[in-house]
């Protein structure tokens, strides 16, 4: 056996090639602009020189002698006639020119300061890690300002940088261009020590190497030429660009030798600079793009690397794979939940390698005889010597089957029972890829059980899905252990079931379990068998006309675990205002109530399904669901359930009522309008009359719609299919029924009625300023009767908003998800329970602060104490345990628990009626469950966090400017707010504060108003009656006494506020404030002065634009629009300790990083909660802890966490690819390959999850 040495990459160092290195690595100097000669042979010294590598098969490389497969290609070089600047380093060149002395090349910072910085750098003290990183920018900032060099005393000149490549110095004699050659000269004199201070690594990157003297020529393998069908060679874009460079270089060289006037030579140098610039980057602003003959811009080096389809994201982070397939999906409720139906045609292309053993040789021989075109068959045979036989070309398969021996490998067709991975994009969470068992079926689509649609977010309107076949035993084992559908029943986002009954399954369950459903013995046994019930038949529960029959509830009960007890209120009961807690299951018997969405539905935490999956394990949970679903499906199929036009027929009496009610509402609206005209409309505080009218109309019309809807809804009896579906939660809602049978209601755009589109009207069919409901999109028809043309148009207007919103939202939330993943992908749980990045930086000391895995938790709790006690109570006997006994037990068993859980357990036990033994049993079971629910080391907690926050983003509404508390204040909510928070913006779009008051302010309104006045910013402009401007002498502000008293200001206040301005003198007479202008300013200055004076703050806190007083929990609270926490804290009478703002950044600077973390958590929670999305608090804590882990708020994105990652490759793969690499080169950074992206890029296993585990062996020492 030969031992293969496997080389693995330890790290990658980035550096810049010096001209010497360029020449050293070059195998050929390229001088000829031609590529191939007439015979089609590569020109010697041309761009396709044979020494640069091989392209055609069979051809041997002139340098290394290898053929295409093994020759890596070799670099050549071009000697440039004049040096040119490297565009990727242009910013660094600029900064260096600004900060170094033009004559002595030292940093223009006094030596003492440099020494100081050096000391900080050399001290290497742990607490300087942040300050060290700021040294370069501080030095550059200082050096830029120096007028003379502190080292040699020479005067420094102003530098003008014209983008992209021209530097000009402004000297006493005039403007003087700095040529690359001079820049190079200057840079070569910069001291290594100075460079180190600027975070350069002088060994790997001297700044003079930013100026190119020799240009490397990429190997031909990087820029292969292709031969078109016509036989014409077509060269790569890079080759084209190189040809340009060589041509200009040649001309430049010749004209220099010929002594051409310098002006023309300079033009040629500039041209050479242009060509080299576009060779590196063809999207530089300020210069024209280089185009192909066809007009298409050339794709040069930078363009190859960056962007979604670039090398990093397109070819390195994402690779195409074999053993995969994709086709349309369709539903099949007869499948098992964990199965996927694979078309035979697909099964015959996808193969599984199987080694022949004693035990499978017979089966394999049969498969080989079947061959590649008969299912089940074999496509390839691999002999132990490595020879691969393709069975397509084998004439006689039975002979070859006979030659099969143990140890041969057979690539057989996919067959029933194989494990495969099934995926639907976008893969927003871990349940987007699950392992299914194969079921080979006829047809051309992948089949899946309708109940696994929610985790994939799939439907069957043409969706396609992908299927991957794991090829190794390890991969299959991992898939079976971690990824099967039954292991994904519980969503890690909220610790509840994500898979469950849907649509008709729910309806069916209701129809089966409702009180009057009876089944004959035949029906009962058939259905029980279908649900794979294998026990004895129970006794029929009731009699109809003397014959014993079973109830539907009995059938359902067959599949419940025998010791299962449970109580819940069904959705149906809530919808029909029935009894609470109607569903009662006692000892595995459904006693009362109907089974509907709240018992077995998808995405319903605390349901029967959830309890079974949690208490009895995922496999039993899946089995239960499978049995119920298939049975219920059969039942509803035979029962016959449909919904159609006739089910929406409303009796004439109710139709009349609907139209009467609508007419009445119209009258009310018209009444509002006339009241508005007369000015008698009752105004709500803080609203203009128009706004108040609008609000009134919208409210009235909303009520009208609801009333019409409920009239229609009520007219249907409880056997109406629509009502059944709506009340059981199978599909639709009462609102939908109302819209179909009652009235459609108000159509809206951005939450408002359709007010304008044409001048003063929504559509040209109405009169201008017609304010009637009809004119602004109120649809009084319903879907059943049909809409009028105008109504239809309004409806389409509203409908379009929905479409646009969805399109925009998917983009925004997709990008947010990408950023979250990038920031968190490398965060994992370590063996000591801490959460760290791969470089050892601690993010949390204990995951989620309690070390519990949400996916293994019970709706966020380690275990459900109440349930444990409940089920124990049923079997418990004996007298109640004493308080001391309970305390003893809890002390003994809850040692490892966190304080909250211990308290929870103790409190609940004390309240229970359990005996001594019962208490101990509960404690024991609790401890067991607690230990099971802990997170496992290696867990990719970061990725799960990112998914749990990103995935709900897609479900959020985009633009809900929603009125919080009072109608006057609107606050950003939904997706924009979520993005704003993870962006760590300096200022939210709608800053707002809640100010609570101290002592008397809480109760007395007067006191509260006084404080509010001190908070609200009052500018001079808010106090004026009118302004009178004399452009020559003075500005006169006439103050309004009414406004002064409203704001609690005096004339004196205004005078004092204006005093500090030196441009005028203030004099006051009564309420007239006169600003006597100094000097003789022109009109424009007067206007400027006046505007400035109008904006002067007289009273209150800057930035607090509006305030509202409201009573909350019996105390006065000031709500503000605008936030300025630092200044509000100075106001007397407020409750400083409970001051709230939604500006997290402000909190970080006034209350500290820990407060910011808490504020961030509460804001994230509030945003998600408002949208009705459940996300476990552990995820929100992790994101917040990560964002605050460096002592300041870091953004989730390129300027924050993703941008400060240690890995060069990970940063380059995220965004700003080329500058990242350029910077890595000049700092001599080393890629240590510890994170995720890096290892994907180089093709290693990723160090997370099951990849964290390594096998080490201790070699025993010889004695």
């Amino acid at each position, binding site marked *: 056996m030969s031992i293969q040495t496997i080389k693995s990459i330890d790290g990658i160092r980035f550096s810049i090639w010096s001209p010497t290195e360029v020449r050293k690595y070059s195998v050929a100097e390229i001088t000829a602009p031609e590529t191939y000669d007439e015979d089609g042979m590569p020109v010697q010294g041309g761009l396709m020189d044979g020494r640069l590598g091989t392209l055609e098969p069979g051809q041997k490389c002139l340098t290394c002698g290898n053929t295409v497969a093994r020759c890596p290609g070799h670099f050549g070089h071009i000697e440039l006639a004049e040096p040119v600047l490297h565009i990727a380093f242009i910013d660094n060149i600029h900064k260096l020119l600004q900060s170094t002395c033009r004559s002595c090349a030292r940093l223009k910072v006094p030596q003492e300061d440099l020494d100081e910085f050096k000391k900080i750098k050399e001290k290497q003290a742990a607490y300087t*890690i942040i300050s060290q990183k700021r040294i370069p920018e501080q030095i550059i900032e200082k050096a830029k300002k120096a007028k003379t060099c502190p080292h040699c005393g020479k005067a420094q000149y102003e530098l003008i940088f014209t983008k992209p490549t021209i530097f000009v110095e402004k000297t006493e004699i005039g403007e003087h261009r700095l040529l690359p050659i001079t820049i190079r000269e200057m840079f070569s004199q910069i001291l290594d020590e100075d460079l180190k201070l600027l975070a350069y690594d002088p060994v790997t990157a001297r700044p003079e190497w930013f100026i190119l003297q020799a240009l490397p020529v990429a190997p031909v393998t990087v820029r292969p030429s292709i031969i078109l069908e016509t036989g014409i060679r077509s060269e790569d874009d890079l080759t084209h660009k190189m040809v340009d460079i060589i041509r200009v270089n040649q001309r430049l060289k010749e004209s220099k030798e010929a002594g051409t006037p310098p002006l023309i030579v300079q033009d040629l140098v500039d041209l050479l600079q242009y060509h080299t610039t576009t060779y590196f980057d063809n999207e530089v602003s300020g210069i024209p793009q280089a185009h192909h003959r066809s007009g298409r811009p050339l794709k040069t080096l930078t363009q190859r690397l960056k962007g979604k389809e670039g090398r990093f994201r397109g070819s390195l982070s994402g690779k195409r794979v074999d053993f995969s397939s994709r086709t349309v999906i369709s539903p099949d409720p007869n499948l098992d939940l964990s199965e996927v139906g694979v078309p035979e045609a697909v099964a015959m292309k996808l193969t599984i390698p199987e080694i022949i053993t004693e035990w499978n040789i017979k089966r394999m021989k049969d498969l080989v005889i079947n061959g590649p075109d008969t299912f089940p068959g074999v496509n390839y045979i691999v002999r132990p010597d490595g020879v691969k036989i393709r069975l397509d070309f084998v004439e006689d398969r039975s002979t070859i089957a006979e030659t099969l021996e143990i140890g041969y490998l057979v690539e057989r067709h996919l067959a029933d029972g194989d494990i495969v991975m099934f995926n639907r994009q976008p893969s927003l969470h871990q349940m987007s890829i699950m392992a299914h068992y194969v079921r080979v079926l006829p047809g051309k689509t992948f089949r899946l059980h309708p109940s696994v649609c929610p985790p994939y977010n799939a439907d069957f309107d043409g969706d396609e899905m992908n299927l991957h076949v794991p090829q190794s035993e390890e991969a299959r084992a991992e898939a079976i252990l971690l990824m099967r559908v039954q292991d994904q029943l519980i969503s890690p986002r909220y610790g509840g079931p994500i898979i469950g009954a849907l649509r008709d399954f729910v309806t069916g369950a209701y129809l089966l379990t409702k009180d009057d459903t009876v089944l004959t013995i035949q029906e009962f046994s058939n259905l029980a068998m279908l649900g794979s019930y294998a026990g004895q038949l129970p006794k029929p529960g009731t009699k109809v006309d003397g014959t014993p029959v079973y109830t539907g509830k009995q059938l359902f009960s067959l599949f419940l675990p025998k010791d299962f007890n449970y109580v819940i209120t069904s959705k149906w009961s809530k919808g029909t205002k029935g009894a609470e807690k109607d569903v009662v299951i006692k000892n595995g018997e459904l006693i009362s109530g109907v089974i509907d969405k709240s018992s077995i539905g998808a995405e319903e935490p605390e349901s029967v399904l959830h309890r079974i999956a949690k208490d009895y394990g995922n496999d039993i949970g899946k089995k239960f669901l499978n049995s119920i679903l298939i049975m219920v499906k059969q039942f509803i199929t035979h029962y016959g359930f449909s919904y159609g036009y006739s089910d929406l027929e409303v009796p004439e009496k109710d139709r009349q009522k609907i139209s009467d009610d609508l007419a009445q509402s119209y009258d009310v609206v018209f009444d509002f309008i006339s009241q508005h005209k007369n000015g008698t409309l009752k105004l709500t505080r803080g609203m203009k009359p128009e706004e108040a009218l609008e609000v009134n109309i919208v409210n009235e019309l909303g009520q009208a719609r609801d009333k019409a809807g409920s009239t229609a809804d009520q007219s249907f009896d409880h056997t109406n299919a629509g009502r059944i579906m709506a009340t059981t939660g199978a599909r639709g809602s009462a609102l939908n029924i109302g819209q179909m049978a009652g009235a459609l209601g108000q159509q809206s755009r951005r939450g408002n009625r359709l007010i304008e589109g044409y001048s003063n009207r929504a559509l040209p069919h109405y009169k201008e300023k017609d304010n009637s409901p009809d004119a602004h999109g109120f649809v009084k028809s319903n879907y059943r009767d049909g809409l009028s043309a105008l109504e239809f148009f309004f409806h389409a207007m509203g409908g379009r908003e929905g479409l646009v919103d969805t399109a925009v939202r998917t983009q925004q939330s997709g990008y947010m998800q990408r950023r979250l993943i990038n920031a968190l992908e490398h965060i994992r749980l370590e063996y000591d329970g801490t959460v760290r990045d791969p470089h050892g*930086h601690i993010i*949390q*000391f204990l995951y989620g602060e309690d070390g519990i895995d949400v996916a293994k938790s019970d709706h966020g709790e380690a275990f459900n104490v109440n349930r444990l006690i409940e089920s124990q109570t049923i079997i418990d006997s004996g007298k109640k345990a004493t308080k001391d006994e309970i305390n003893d037990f809890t002390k003994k068993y809850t040692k490892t628990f966190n304080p909250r*859980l211990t308290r929870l357990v103790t409190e609940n036990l004390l309240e229970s009626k359990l005996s001594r033994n019962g208490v101990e049993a509960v404690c024991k079971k609790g401890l067991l469950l607690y230990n099971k629910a802990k997170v496992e080391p290696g867990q990719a907690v970061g990725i799960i966090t990112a998914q749990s926050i990103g995935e709900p983003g897609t479900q959020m509404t985009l633009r809900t400017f929603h009125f919080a508390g009072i109608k006057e204040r609107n606050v950003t909510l939904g997706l924009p707010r979520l993005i704003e928070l993870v962006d760590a913006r300096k200022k939210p779009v709608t800053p707002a504060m809640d100010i609570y008051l101290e002592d008397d302010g809480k109760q007395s309104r007067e006191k509260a108003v006084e404080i509010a006045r001190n908070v609200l910013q009052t500018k001079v402009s808010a106090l004026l009656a009118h302004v009178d401007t004399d452009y020559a002498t003075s500005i006169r502000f006439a103050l309004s006494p009414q406004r002064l008293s409203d704001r609690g200001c005096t004339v004196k206040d205004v005078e004092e506020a204006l005093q500090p301005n030196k441009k005028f003198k203030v004099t006051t007479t009564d309420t007239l404030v006169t600003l006597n202008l100094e000097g003789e300013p022109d009109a424009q200055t007067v206007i400027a002065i006046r505007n400035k004076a109008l904006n002067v703050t007289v009273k209150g806190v800057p930035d607090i634009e509006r305030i509202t007083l409201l009573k909350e929990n019996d105390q006065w609270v000031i709500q503000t629009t605008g936030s300025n926490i630092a200044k509000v804290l*100075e106001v007397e009478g407020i409750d*400083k300790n409970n001051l709230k703002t939604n500006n997290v950044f402000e909190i970080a600077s006034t*209350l500290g*990083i820990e407060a910011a973390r808490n504020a961030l958590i509460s804001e994230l929670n509030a945003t998600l909660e408002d949208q009705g999305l459940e996300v476990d608090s552990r995820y929100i804590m992790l994101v917040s802890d990560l964002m605050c882990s460096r002592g300041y708020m870091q953004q989730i994105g390129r300027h924050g966490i993703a941008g400060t990652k240690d890995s060069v490759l990970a940063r380059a793969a995220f965004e700003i690819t080329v500058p990242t690499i350029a910077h890595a080169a000049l700092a001599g950074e080393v890629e240590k390959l510890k994170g995720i992206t890096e290892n994907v890029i180089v093709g290693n296993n990723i160090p997370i999850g099951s990849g964290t585990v390594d096998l080490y062996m201790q070699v025993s020492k010889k004695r």
Partner: protein
Amino acid sequence: MGVKKNQVLVPDHAFVPKHEIVSKEDAEKVLKKFNCKPTELPLIFVTDPAILGLGVKPGDLIKITRKSPTAGESLYYRYVVEV
């Protein structure tokens, strides 16, 4: 990140958890417990308003006692760094 002059400090704000300086010996123990270098801990600036009144210097370790929705109470450590 700097602190403004005359800033009002609110160490008892509902959002500000308890910050304490950890003694040198205890700091050693913490580092040992988590087997890490000080730079691998979460950081806090010396100028952070929550620790301004405590007389901290760069290099100190701060123990933070947080209220936790999951655990009731939890400990967090931050290493004090220069701005």
